[in-house]
């Protein structure tokens, strides 16, 4: 159980990587942009991959009537997400310590993982909602209006995950280092759960025999 507790602590601490590294990254390449423009989604705001990328993305987006990319203070998420991640990390560490000293059951590890997954899915849902509104809530006076074959206005929603072609842009949306660290951390908490369970079953066997 000691090993499980340590892994639980490590897994939870990996979440803190999000305070240093971006969670997600969206790259926009086009014939005129052989060096793609890009934005990194950090826990506390959106930053350009290069110094002026956000400004340049906004500049291009004004043709199709998209809103400018929100500043940190424009979205409650960038205030709440850091608190949630910090809270979950501390909670995970606490559970890990308590597990390490044998005060609580390994089942708390799974409990943490489920809570984190629910929060993560909610976060993704929220993120996707934002992408949808960002990509489809267009200025009616937009310079360039592109419609789908059925006549409805085309949405410029970037993909939540993976690749999509949007007009002349090749858009790729993937987790970044912070995101990968978070996934790794979450996976480790599952490992902790599994180790804890195995230890628990072993001790159970020992006590019954």
């Amino acid at each position: 159980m000691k090993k499980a507790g340590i892994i639980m602590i490590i897994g939870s601490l990996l979440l803190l990587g999000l305070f240093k590294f971006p969670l997600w990254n969206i790259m926009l390449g086009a014939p005129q942009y052989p060096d793609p423009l890009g934005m990194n989604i950090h826990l506390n705001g959106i930053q350009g991959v290069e110094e002026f990328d956000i400004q340049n993305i906004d500049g291009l987006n004004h043709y199709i009537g998209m809103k400018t990319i929100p500043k940190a203070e424009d979205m409650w998420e960038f205030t709440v997400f850091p608190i949630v991640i910090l809270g979950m990390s501390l909670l995970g560490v606490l559970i890990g310590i308590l597990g390490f000293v044998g005060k609580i059951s390994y089942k708390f590890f799974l409990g943490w993982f489920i809570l984190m997954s629910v929060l993560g899915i909610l976060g993704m849902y929220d993120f996707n909602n934002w992408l949808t509104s960002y990509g489809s809530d267009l200025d009616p006076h937009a310079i360039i209006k592109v419609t789908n074959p059925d006549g409805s206005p085309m949405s410029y929603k970037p993909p939540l995950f993976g690749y999509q072609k949007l007009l002349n842009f090749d858009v790729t949306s993937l987790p970044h280092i912070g995101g990968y660290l978070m996934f790794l951390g979450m996976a480790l908490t599952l490992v902790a759960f599994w180790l804890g369970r195995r230890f628990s079953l072993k001790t159970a066997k020992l006590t019954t025999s």
Partner: protein
Amino acid sequence: MKNIIKSVVAMVTVFIAFTSCNNASKSNSKSGALASNIAEKVYVAPGEYDEFYAFLSGGYSGNLTVYGLPSGRMFKEIPVFSQFPTSGYGYSEETKPMLNTSHGFIPWGDSHHPDISQTNGEIDGRFIFINENNTPRIAKIDLKTFETTEIIEVPNSAGNHSSSFVTENTEYVVAGTRFSVPIPQRDMPIKDYKGNFKGALSFISVAPETGDMAIKFQVLMPGFNYDLSHPGRGKSHGWFFFTTYNTEEANTLLEVNASQNDKDFIAAINWKKIEEYVNNGGGTMMPTDYAHNVYDEHTHTATSTMIKEVRVVNPSEVPGAVFFLPTPKSPHGCDVDPSGEYIVGNGKLSANLTVHSFTKMLAAIEGKKFAGEAYGIPILNFEDVLAGVVNQPGLGPLHTEFDDKGNAYTTFFISSEVVKWKLGTWEVIDRKPTYYSVGHLTIPGGNSRKPQGKYMFAMNKITKDRYLPTGPEMEHSAQLYDISGEKMELLLDFPTHGEPHYAAAMRADIIKENSQKIYNLADNKHPYAAKSDGDTKVVRDGSNVHIYMTTIRSHFSPDNIEGIKLGDKVYFHVTNLEQDFDVPHGFAVLGQNTSELLIMPGQTKTSVWEPTKVGVWPFYCTDFCSALHQEMQGYIRVSPANSDTPIKWSMGEDIE
């Protein structure tokens, strides 16, 4: 060069008898298979980069052109000494001071010899310097931005030709005078030239960090013509060598009168010694006036300062600093090999190439073995300093460059060829024709301790039938040769712009990495910059009207302007708000008497317009900046002088 053409006509007839020995190598027609192999050597696939940058002087274009090697593709023309309507250089208010001189504004120049800055004898790719021959000036181009950022006028000089070569650590960029003149200039009979005219050799210091130029001192030499020069390097670092002709001191019909002496001189100048003398207060401050023009990258504006005095040094004041090395027949190029030991005097009217030895020169000076003196300057014995002679390599040797394997390559103007020969043994290894009448040649890193070899290109004076004809006037031609093997191999023939004299070339990596993409708008300190649409305004100041205008894809702000009256001087201060690589905007207004402006991202440029007619005149973006480029336009209303139309402006709504 025209003078040479004239003067060699006679030579050709004389030499025609023994040119037959050179004709054997003329025919080197390649088979089809071999030719395609050559094509691969210069083929740079779409999207790939050239291995080398080459900077070719524009000669009478006054500019500097940037090429890639081995493709021979031209990337840019950098305006230096000539107005350039393409970008507004020399027309915009910010850049007009760059072309200021003590003779006033000069719209044109004759650029000759570019040289890249060096550190420890190796080219470092920070700056490139180039001389203006006609109204003597030296320019510095910053290789971060590929823009001319400094021009200094050289007083007491005339025909700034033995320039602009840098010393091993870019301590100095050196500018020698081709024409000797009265110093100081004065009203005197031309026939009194001899003994009265002088030749100024100027040592312009370059500040190590900033690259700022200042004339440290001028050596006032006898009234010869100082044709070309090169710095010593390695063991000869601290010396500078100048070829001279017209040691006869003729002032008329020089083609005959300056070709009488069997030998002219290479002047060897121990600049370290003179520098020390000057640092200890030596020399004399002489009243003069010359312009020093500096472009500030933050204000995007040049300022021109007139300087009123210059420090001059008479060689006789500094014994042991200046010597003459006799060199046959009006030597042209003065080239120092990578080791610094050999000084090649390309005696343009001689059939042989003369090579002096630096070590022998020092020994002769040490032994005080002088053949005589000229105006108090010791003349060494020809035999004492001679390292060797390349016998009958060709006709009309002009310039020599070096590779990294101990070989030298000399151009021959009259026999129109490049000859490869070996340093030390003086044997001719190979010769290849050029098309036609070659002047300079360049090997990347050729003027340094570490030539980068691989390619050599020859820049020719006569084009004739090389390309599809374009009427009487044609661009000059250059040929690129592969010099990696024992024999040179002709790879490519490409047209050049203006009349390239010398060129400088180097491996692309350093310059490529440092090349700037945009100007940071936040760093823009232009006094009339509008850094956002909110800063735009129109301000009347008497009959001057200042328009603080912005551009961003795809509009001007303001784009409706009223209240201008006939007789007004309208300043369009246009700031490009873009911060995206390669998104310039242009500005032109109907009836503009200057040129357009081409404004790079983050930059501010100003065009003055003095409207001559009442009306509503359009202005527009001249660079196809975006999908809505054609929409990027505006109107400016010009009212009669006595009208009371108020100054008003707008963007996105009507002026009420």
